[in-house]
């Protein structure tokens, strides 16, 4: 337990110390929020869907978690050659603990980051239906964070060099974001797109956060939670397996 705790603490400490990085990583979500949120707002309203800012804020929160947690997982690739990870791999502790400590640390950082974005959304004019639901929203955020931190671990353990990183960004992370319904409603989509969005775990995450925060949902809150939890268990197992296979 102490081992998991100290590895978790390490990730969080490192994050809190890197002030510039915190500010830099807030840049792109704020841009999406500001430019798209206000830019597409009038059209969205004309289409009779209400406030676009209200609609997309949960999506931007989901996006922040996606990017932050995936990065922390993929950073493993770097960490195992030049960083601290190698030190943990020769320590007399089960790799599973190391993987759990690291993944939870990455997930925690992603949640903190998402809360910062939540505050930004609030300042921009986003209003949740009530503040009582915040713990429930936090639960969904945690689920999203664990899903993608685990996915990042799977990828970070499997990649051989940094070249693969760009590939993952372009063909996995960006599609996951754009297919998630973070930016558009899932109703009346073309068949292919509708199918793809259903295969994307982030879709259920964003839908879950949205249903909690603004009371709009596509799949229903229970379905969202069940799918996310299922995917989380699956990816955590895959991550643990890939992580146990790392040879340096």
């Amino acid at each position: 337990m102490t081992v998991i705790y100290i590895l978790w603490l390490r990730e969080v400490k490192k994050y809190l110390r890197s002030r510039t990085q915190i500010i830099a990583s807030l840049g792109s979500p704020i841009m999406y929020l500001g430019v798209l949120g206000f830019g597409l707002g009038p059209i969205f309203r004309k289409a009779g869907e209400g406030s676009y800012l209200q609609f997309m804020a949960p999506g931007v929160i989901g996006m922040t978690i996606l990017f932050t947690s995936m990065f922390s997982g993929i950073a493993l690739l770097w960490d195992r050659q030049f960083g601290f990870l190698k030190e943990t791999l020769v320590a007399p502790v089960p790799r599973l603990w190391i993987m759990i400590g690291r993944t939870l640390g990455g997930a925690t950082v992603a949640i903190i980051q998402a809360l910062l974005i939540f505050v930004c959304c609030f300042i921009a004019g986003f209003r949740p239906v009530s503040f009582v639901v915040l713990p429930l929203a936090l639960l969904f955020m945690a689920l999203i964070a664990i899903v993608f931190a685990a996915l990042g671990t799977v990828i970070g353990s499997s990649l051989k060099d940094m070249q693969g990183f760009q590939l993952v960004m372009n063909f996995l992370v960006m599609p996951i974001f754009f297919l998630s319904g973070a930016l558009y409603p899932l109703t009346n989509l073309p068949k292919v797109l509708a199918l793809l969005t259903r295969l994307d775990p982030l879709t259920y995450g964003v839908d879950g956060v949205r249903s909690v925060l603004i009371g709009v949902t596509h799949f229903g809150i229970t379905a969202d939670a069940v799918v996310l939890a299922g995917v989380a268990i699956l990816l955590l197992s895959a991550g643990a397996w890939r992580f146990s296979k790392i040879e340096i």
Partner: protein
Amino acid sequence: MIRVTNLVKRFGELTAVDNISFEVHRGEIFAFLGPNGAGKTTTIKMLTTLLKPTSGSLELDGLDPTVNRDEVRKRFGVVFQDPSLDQDLTAWENMEIHGVLYGVPRKERRERATSLLQLFELWERRDALVKTFSGGMRRRLEIARGLLHTPKVLFLDEPTLGLDPQSRNQMWTHVKSLNETDQVTVFLTTHYMDEADRVAQRIAIIDHGRVVAIGSSAELKERTSTQSLEDAFLALTGTTIRDESASSADSMRQIARMWRR
């Protein structure tokens, strides 16, 4: 302390370690010398449980690293060729995490960390982030950390690479005195002949994955009728330059170097 018998490691077509056998005695400083790509690091990785051998047997303090993995891990400390410190943490925090990972009780952990940091002349900088440290300081911290859990064997894989003569000299003085006072067995690899000559009691020369000669520096010189260890080394391994093809680790190493500046 360490016994390696008929050890083989293949990566696909490539045979990195080709049927080597040797022994390292308790309390000894043992050096592994060899050109690039000779199989030094691969052997260390197998002894430190990071790689599984293709065939052959390994023994460290009477235990098999492929079977009693965690027991073996408690018995050695290691400094890898590439840095493995957490640069965004302080020297003290790096020591703390290591102690927790190795299950050293809190009181003992603090005492040992304190005395080791003092010994390696890092005590004043214990609360500074590692990224503000010079190359020599980082190496010293890595060695201090590797010794925190009182290991019986210390592996040093090219620990002086990229250090200036002052840091190298100081580092070996520390390692030598530790070996004498605490009886820590030291297994090191290096490219610098003078270092091996100075600190190691016995030297194994390895080339193309095979041990070509083993013995004290004097014995090696005598066997090849040469004056210096460097000449003996060249007589045994030839003068051809080994052009290793770059691995993915090499290309990452290059990027790392770029970032550090």
